[in-house]
């Protein structure tokens, strides 16, 4: 049952041992309530659940899989990271904490000063500090550089007024890293500064946004004369744009969500092969079988493309690879969830907010929630613009 491996780089015996170690750890340590939530395709685990799992990982020394050992990471090779990501997904363990572990940590490691690293990295590793990302604004979504939320220098502080939009987990975060307009005179990419904000500071109001799946993950955040010390600035004043670009390109692993989609596909196959009350199985329909087969082939193509592009040594192909992997990854992921929702029929369509019925309602929640994936983190449209320019040269 080894993965089909076109590289032979994942087939080394010591990696096989590593894979077994990861599997054993997950079997022993993954709490059942967390596993169940993830197996219902939920991304919005509670703070307590995320924290509990992060502490389990931290005890094992596996808290931040991509980080160097000196900052509290396991110091793994790229192959180990790849295997760890696959096995956690297959076990229905949570994704890594995006904002702290995947985004801010590596950014501080690259751009933060020693004081910032000492102050913030341990809280991310041990799960005590939660972060949110203050990038988007009501009129700066796809066009992020158009952001207008102002930070005005006043002695050893910045004074912030304005608003941030679509801020995931602002309501459970301790800190925000964000982009603020410190100079409006030049090109819009200039005059942007990268600041770290204590979410308990006076002058912050958080207004929840409920999404079409009925969940509360995102918020609008308002700043009213909020003061931030200059020591919480990462990099130089007016030079935050390059830090943000670097941060947004960090998510090489997992951006295609291949491992999660493999897990979802296996769930779909299980549903399709369950004997139904009328005796048949969904898979007996040749058309349904075709839909599953085509999705599986799409997913294998994507998986192999990810391996090709991830392990590639070619220069300059990385950003483009990330773009097409994200576009195609969300398409495949959304298609699997959609087919699963259709497979479960009307019982998936019951509204869990107004009904005791649990059953299959999780799938429509997931389907609706995952519509966001082709919008956030650079919409599919923006990704295509990037590829058109960077790869096609148009």
């Amino acid at each position, binding site marked *: 049952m080894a993965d089909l491996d076109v590289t032979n780089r994942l087939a080394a015996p010591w990696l096989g041992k590593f894979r077994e170690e990861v599997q054993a750890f997950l079997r022993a340590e993954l709490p059942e309530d967390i596993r169940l939530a993830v197996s219902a395709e939920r991304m919005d685990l509670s703070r307590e659940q995320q924290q509990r799992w992060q502490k389990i990982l931290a005890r094992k020394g596996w808290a931040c899989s991509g980080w160097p050992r000196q900052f509290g990471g396991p110091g793994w090779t790229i192959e180990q990271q790849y295997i760890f990501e696959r096995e956690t997904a297959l076990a229905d363990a949570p994704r890594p904490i995006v904002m702290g572990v995947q985004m801010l940590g590596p950014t501080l490691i690259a751009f933060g000063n020693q004081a910032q690293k000492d102050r913030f990295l341990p809280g991310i590793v041990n799960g005590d500090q939660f972060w949110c990302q203050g990038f*988007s604004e009501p*009129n700066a*979504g*796809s*066009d992020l550089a*158009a952001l207008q939320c102002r930070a005005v220098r006043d002695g050893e502080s910045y004074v912030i007024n304005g608003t941030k*939009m*679509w801020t995931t987990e602002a309501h459970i975060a301790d800190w925000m890293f964000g982009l603020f307009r410190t100079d409006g005179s030049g090109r819009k990419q200039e005059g942007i500064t990268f600041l770290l904000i204590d979410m308990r500071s006076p002058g912050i109001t958080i207004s929840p*946004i*409920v*999404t*079409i799946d*009925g969940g509360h993950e995102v918020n609008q955040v308002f700043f009213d004369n909020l003061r931030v010390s200059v020591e919480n600035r990462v990099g130089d004043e007016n030079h935050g744009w390059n830090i943000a670009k670097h941060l947004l390109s960090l998510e090489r692993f997992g951006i295609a969500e291949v491992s999660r989609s493999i897990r979802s596909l296996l769930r779909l196959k299980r549903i399709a092969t369950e004997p*139904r*009350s*009328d*005796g*048949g199985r969904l898979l007996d*329909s040749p*058309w*349904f079988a075709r839909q599953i087969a085509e999705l599986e082939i799409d997913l294998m193509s994507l998986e192999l493309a990810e391996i090709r592009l991830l392990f590639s040594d070619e220069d300059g192909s990385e950003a483009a690879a990330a773009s097409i992997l994200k576009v195609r990854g969300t398409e495949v992921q*959304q298609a699997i969830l*959609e087919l699963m*929702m*259709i497979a479960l*029929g*009307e019982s*998936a*369509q*019951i*509204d869990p*907010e*107004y*009904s005791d*019925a649990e059953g299959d309602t999780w799938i*429509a929640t997931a*389907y*609706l929630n995952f*519509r*966001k994936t*082709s*919008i*956030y983190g650079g*919409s*599919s*449209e923006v990704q*295509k613009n990037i590829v058109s320019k960077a790869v096609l040269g148009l």
Partner: protein
Amino acid sequence: MEFWLTEEQVMFRDSVARFLADRHAIGDRLRARSDAAAFSDAEWRSIAELGWLAAPFPEAYGGIGGSTTDMALVMEQLGRVLLPCPYLSSVVLGGTMLLHCGSARQKERFLAKICAGEMRVALAYAESSAGSDLSRMAAVARPVAGDYEISGSKTFVLDGGLADCLLVAARSADGPGDGRLSIFAVPRAAAGIRVEPHRMRDGSETATIHFSSVRAGPEDVIGRPGQGAELLGRVLDVAAAMICMEAVGAMWAAYHLTLDYMKVRTQFGQKIGSFQALQHRMVDVYTQCQMAQSIAMGAVAALESDDAALRTRMCSAAKLRVGATARKVGEECVQLHGGIGMTREHPVGHYLKRLNGIRTSFGDENHHLQRYVACFDPDNYASR
């Protein structure tokens, strides 16, 4: 759309649209959405007074003397404003079954009340153990001293909790074979009936209904005993065509919302509607809506045909094509809205939810493909 409508039908449709536009600004309703029932009795009385319920039925039974087309026009307009109300259950399903299959006595007994909004009817036929296969239905109607006793459980009964009268499909003799199905009209308040209501994601109401030795007389059988599968086939064709018209209304509304948004939303210093890639996608949405509307109207027209295979072919064709289009249009309209389209505050996501609800109601795309292929005419073009 005008070309196929009479002048009266155009006036009727426009009056429906005006009434709904005045009273049912969808944004307001969504913001007010709470634990209170989405549907109100007062609203239903207004609709009855306007004659929407009576429109498709003959004057002899309290109707206005219109046709299936009038029903289709109401459905399309309801789709545009996403108004949850028991029109589909009571008028389309209940009314059609009574009109086509009821005895003169039953028409008198029920239709006038349906037209006046005094009685609401729901059709209870699906069962969790039968899927969409009528021949596997388990509910039974046992003969008891000249009467029947109905027992069994029905799932996803549309507006089952709002209805006064239930039309129940049950096996009226032992043994398999769908020739033995019969339809019974029983009051929802009858002894032995237990209703578990469910609110659906799109705001519609369904119920699981348990029947435990519920008594019905011979006069409560709709049509002839044993004719149930035939009647259900006919009514489910009507339901498919009508819900397609609702989907068409919802798709056009989502399209217009999106188009309006593209004309005001600015990114990169331009209205997003000025980006050619988005323009061409919206032209595709427009084209798909036109094609969906055409096949849905074709299905409505086919309902008048005496050729049962043609009716089934057209209704399944419409449900299949409209279902696939509903997915594409609904998802595309949310995507083109970006983040704001993901919020519950904004109407566009509610259209997506209703379109998904429609896709899974009365058979999904694979179900209708199977039905279409089953009456596929290999020698002729399908629409003749």
